[in-house]
Structure formats: structure tokens, C-alpha cells
């Protein structure tokens, strides 16, 4: 019996709503926007959070990144032409860190080169990293084909290189890059492997215009390209002598990341009075990113909550008007034997139908918005399957909460007075 009367009540609710289509539609809009903003904001928030964490994870949460930075007093004099600026991390730093800090398991040196990379007429300006085989494992990057640099490449300073996905794409658009020959500067290198492209990276400053990455054995790079990099700018020739541009230090456990970073700063301070380096701790970034994300989510949630609240108040308003309008119907139903709970049920079903249909449309719009956002901006969005369900649940809840008072008011009407109502 309950099933039949529930279905009956539901049909009746829909029918009553259809009596005032425009009104129902406008009321639904309130919930629709509330729910869609909940879904969209959750999706954008989740995407941003995923992206930030992915970015930091790719840097390696147990890694500490040391980077050479041109000291500011040198920057002033850099207009003087032909001058060679000498700054940054050195091979000695590398050994020192490994020797004095037992919590550091591995260190990876990186030298950046500025050279054009060519395959026949195709040319790119990639970030060229001269490094050691351990780079791959420490950064957790993934090979897509071939192999990475090996110990032998380094010892024998052979002319081999590994291309990132982007670089391979540009240089070998039609052929298999493996065993292909690329020309770096004036030397020829054999491609031995390619890497899966990085989705994100915290690139060193001044490298954002570079396309892709090319990896060389460190010793090979020093053999052919020396220690001095020269940038030619209009009006000036800027030469720098930097032994190592970057050192990646991998720490054994997450707990020791912070103290090791601190200790590293201490060790380097003694040998670098000019502070020509910076220490980047992805873990710290990760923690800060999570905190920012949390605040971001709270703000987004509050905004979405307010729009839902407004939607709910809209529903309540309309239902109160409906109750007044249908006072006589309520009296008739009471005369025909309806109990108070039947009346409550009837009006509650109406509000829930209203808010749930608003909720369903809102979920659709809420899924569409992140898709468009992703299309038009470079923001990443993620619609987790729980969001629509959450939003639907919330919209039903809104219907119940804001429908309860009008329904209760309807049920409490005196039947005699309700019947006499015009």
C-alpha cells in the first residue's frame, strides 16, 4: 500500500508542479545553480589540488633541489661585455653534501647547456641536461622507449643522448627516434632512448621558452662544451662559468627531508658567501600547497553553500505560496480523510521533486562547466564520481530542509478554515 500511495503522491507532486511550469522552472534554477556550482567548484578544486601535488610529486617528495642562482651584485655588472661570471654550485659541493650528510642517499649533478639541437632541417632549443644515469631513478621519470644514460656512457664520455617526448616529437615527427642521429652544437649524438613527457615541471627561471629536454652524459658534455655557457643578447655577450646548475639530493625517509634541507643550507653557507644558490624542498611545497588547497576548498565550498542556501530559500518561498494557494485543496483532502502526515508527505514530495530535478540538471551543468573550463583555460579539473552523488544528496536534503516548514504549515491548517478559504 505504501508503495502505491508513494507513487501516487509522487505523480501528484509532479502534476501539481507542472501546473505552474514557469514557476517550477525558475525555482529549480536556484537549486540548479547551487548544485552545479558545488560540482564545478569541487571539480576545479580537485583538479588544482591534483595538479599541484602531481607537480610536486614529480619533483620527488624525498628530494631536495639545489639550484645555482646568479647573485644579484653580479647581475648589475653583467652589462659589461666579454666578462665571464663565475658563480653557483660546484663538483666539490656535490661531494661535500654526500660526505657530510649521512641522510642523503644519492646526489645527482645537472649541468644546463645552451645549444641548438638539429636533425636535418628541423631545429629546436631544448633544455639540455648533462647528468648521470641516476637522474632517472631519483626523479622517478619514466622511459617510453630505449634506455636511459648508463654508467658506461658516462665513463667513456660517449656521444649518446636521450630525448624527452616533446623533443622526440619535433625532431622525429615521422621516424623512430631510436638510433637516430641528432646534432647538438657541432657534435653528433646517437639517440638511445626517449622519456614520457612530463605533464608539469617547476622549470628553472629563463628556461620556460625552451621546448623539450635532451639528456647527455655529464662527462660527454664537459668534453665537448666545456664549462662556460655563452648567451648572446642584443648589445652584449654574456658568458657564465657555472660548474653545476642543479644538484638533486635524495633523502632516505620523508621525516629527514626537513632537517637535511636545513643541514644542506648550513653546509653550503660556509662555501658560498654570496648566496649564489637556492634550496627547493618539494615536500615543503607539497605541504604548503595542501594548506592553500584546503583554504581554497573552504572558500569554494562556502560560495557553493551560499548559492545552495539561496536556492533553498527560493524553494521555501514558492512552497509557502503554493500552500496558501492550495489551502482549499488541503481542506478538501483533510475532509476526505488525509492525516497530517499525508499532507506533509504530499508537499514534501513536491519540494523534493523540485529540488532533485534541479539537482540532476545542476549535476549535468556542473559536469559541463569543468569540461569547458578545461577546454578554454589550462586549468585541470577532476569530476570524481562522488561529486554528483554528493550534490544530488545535498539537493534532496535542501528540498527536505526547506520543504519541511511549508509542509508542516499546510498540515497544521484547521480543516474547517481551510475549506472556507477563498
Amino acid at each position, binding site marked *: 500500500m505504501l508503495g502505491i*500511495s508513494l507513487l501516487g503522491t509522487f505523480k501528484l507532486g509532479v502534476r501539481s508542479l507542472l501546473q505552474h511550469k514557469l514557476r517550477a522552472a525558475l525555482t529549480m534554477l536556484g537549486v540548479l545553480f547551487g548544485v552545479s556550482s558545488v560540482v564545478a567548484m569541487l571539480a576545479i578544486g580537485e583538479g588544482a589540488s591534483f595538479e599541484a601535488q602531481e607537480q610536486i610529486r614529480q619533483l620527488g617528495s624525498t628530494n631536495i633541489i639545489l639550484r645555482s642562482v646568479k647573485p644579484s651584485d653580479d647581475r648589475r655588472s653583467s652589462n659589461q661585455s666579454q666578462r665571464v661570471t663565475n658563480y653557483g654550485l660546484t663538483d666539490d659541493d656535490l661531494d661535500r653534501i654526500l660526505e657530510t650528510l649521512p641522510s642523503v642517499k644519492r646526489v645527482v649533478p645537472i649541468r644546463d647547456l645552451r645549444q641548438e639541437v638539429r636533425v636535418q632541417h628541423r631545429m629546436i632549443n631544448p633544455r639540455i641536461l648533462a647528468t648521470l644515469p641516476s637522474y632517472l631513478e631519483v626523479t622517478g621519470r619514466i622511459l617510453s622507449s630505449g634506455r636511459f644514460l648508463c654508467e658506461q656512457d658516462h665513463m667513456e664520455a660517449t656521444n649518446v643522448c636521450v630525448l624527452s617526448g616533446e623533443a622526440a616529437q619535433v625532431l622525429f615527427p615521422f621516424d623512430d627516434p631510436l638510433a637516430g642521429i641528432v646534432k647538438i652544437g657541432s657534435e653528433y649524438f646517437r639517440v638511445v632512448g626517449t622519456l614520457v613527457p612530463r605533464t608539469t615541471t617547476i622549470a628553472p627561471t629563463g628556461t620556460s621558452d625552451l621546448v623539450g629536454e635532451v639528456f647527455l652524459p655529464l662527462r660527454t658534455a664537459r668534453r665537448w662544451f666545456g664549462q662556460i655557457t655563452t648567451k648572446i643578447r642584443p648589445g652584449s655577450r654574456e658568458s657564465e662559468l657555472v660548474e653545476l646548475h642543479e644538484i638533486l639530493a635524495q633523502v632516505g625517509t620523508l621525516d629527514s627531508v626537513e632537517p637535511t634541507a636545513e643541514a644542506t643550507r648550513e653546509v653550503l653557507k660556509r662555501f658560498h658567501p654570496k648566496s649564489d644558490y637556492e634550496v627547493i624542498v618539494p615536500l615543503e611545497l607539497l605541504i604548503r600547497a595542501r594548506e592553500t588547497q584546503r583554504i581554497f576548498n573552504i572558500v569554494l565550498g562556502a560560495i557553493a553553500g551560499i548559492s545552495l542556501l539561496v536556492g533553498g530559500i527560493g524553494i521555501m518561498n514558492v512552497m509557502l505560496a503554493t500552500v496558501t494557494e492550495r489551502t482549499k485543496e488541503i481542506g*478538501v483532502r*483533510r475532509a*476526505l480523510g*488525509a*492525516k497530517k502526515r499525508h499532507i506533509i508527505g504530499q508537499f514534501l514530495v513536491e519540494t523534493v521533486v523540485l529540488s532533485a530535478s534541479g539537482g540532476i540538471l545542476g549535476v549535468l551543468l556542473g559536469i559541463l562547466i569543468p569540461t569547458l573550463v578545461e577546454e578554454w583555460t589550462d586549468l585541470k579539473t577532476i569530476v570524481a564520481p562522488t561529486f554528483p552523488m554528493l550534490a544530488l544528496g545535498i539537493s534532496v536534503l535542501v528540498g527536505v530542509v526547506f520543504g519541511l516548514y511549508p509542509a508542516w504549515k499546510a498540515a497544521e491548517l484547521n480543516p474547517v478554515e481551510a475549506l472556507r478559504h477563498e
Partner: protein
Amino acid sequence: MKLNSDTDAVIEFQDLRREFRMGSEVVRALDGVTFTIRRGEYWAVMGTSGSGKSTLLNVLGCLDRPTSGLYRLAGHDVSDLDDDELSELRSRALGFIFQSFHLIPQLTVLENIEVPLLYRGDDFPGGHDRAIALAERVGLGHRLKHRPSELSGGQQQRVAIARALMNDPAVLLADEATGNLDSATAKEILALFDSLNSEGKTIVLVTHDREVGRRAEKILHLKDGRVVEIENVRAAAAG
């Protein structure tokens, strides 16, 4: 069910009062009303405007509670019942017919007739067929899918009568049921009441119209909330 002195009694009023407090003033809409209606009887309630007819019918219909006095419906002392039990009683024992029909506008004829099924509190497997049969009985078998707004007043009142009969109540209560109808249509409706009464239905009908009142067996004359006379129409006609 309690045993009464009069086992045929469907409705018993004893010294029943209904007062309305209007600020400091007290309006005695019913002022000590006593009468007994037996199963199958056809009563009319008459009186001037403001004499308390509607108030009496509301109390009879368990829509309103008396201020004092006893009201027994089918053996139940109504003053003992809570709101849910009164609703139950309205659903099972009483059928209402109103002056302005009071059909639910968004429902079809058939759905209007079926409304009382919703509130019975049990399953009524033959309900749908019974609703169709009742629609045919009141002459609207061909209008089942129509909305009330598409019907004439007389037709709407027929639907209301079918609806009142849906749960097979002991008593039909009608307040000025023909008040909004022209005399020819009113006659048809009254003929329907006659035939329902002849099938054993107890009917209480409030009216202004002496001619309408004369179709009943007994007329309860009210004045200022009091019973002035219980006129026995058929006895008078016979005598």
C-alpha cells in the same frame, strides 16, 4: 464497538455546544443540541443564516470539535479521538459533499473519485474498478479523463458524490449541495440522493430551501444554535 441503548443509532448528539470566542464575546454557534439519527435515515437541517447549520455539519463531520457535550458516531465517542483517529473516521465513515463541489483541479474525474483511496490506510484491490463503477453510477462514465474545469456544475457535483461514496461511508454529509445549481440540475442531484437513501445510505443535508428539505424524512430546525423542532416530514405527509 460499544453497545448502545439504541443499536440503530449512527449519530448521537447530547447537549452539544460549540462556542467561538471573539475577543471578549462568546458566540454560541451550537447551544445545547440533542438528537439521534438512525441508520438509513434522511435528514435535512434548516434554519436562517447564522443559525449554526454549517457548524453542526462540521462537528458531525469530525472536522471540528464540540466545546462540550457528547457526540457519538457509529458508537465511537468522538471527543476521545486524536487528530489521526478523526481523520481515519472521516475516511471510513463519512462522505462529504460541498456547496461549491471542491474537486481537485489538477486531477481528472477518475482521479478525483479515487482520492479517498489514498487515505484509507489499507489496500483496496477493487478500488479502481469501484471508482469507474461509481462514475458510471452518477452518469459520468464517459468523462473519466476530463478535468473538473471541463465539466458543468451539475457534473462536478456528481463527481463529488461519487468521491464521497468511494470508501462506502455510513453517512453522507451535504452542505447546500444544490445551492450553486439551477433547479433542473438540483432536481437530478436530489434524485440521486433519494436513490442512495433508498439503498440504505444515511444522509444529512443542510439547506435553505424548503422544497429540498421536504424530500428528507426529518427536518431539524435550528435557530440561534438551538433545535426548535424536529419535523417528521413523511409522517406529516402520510397524516
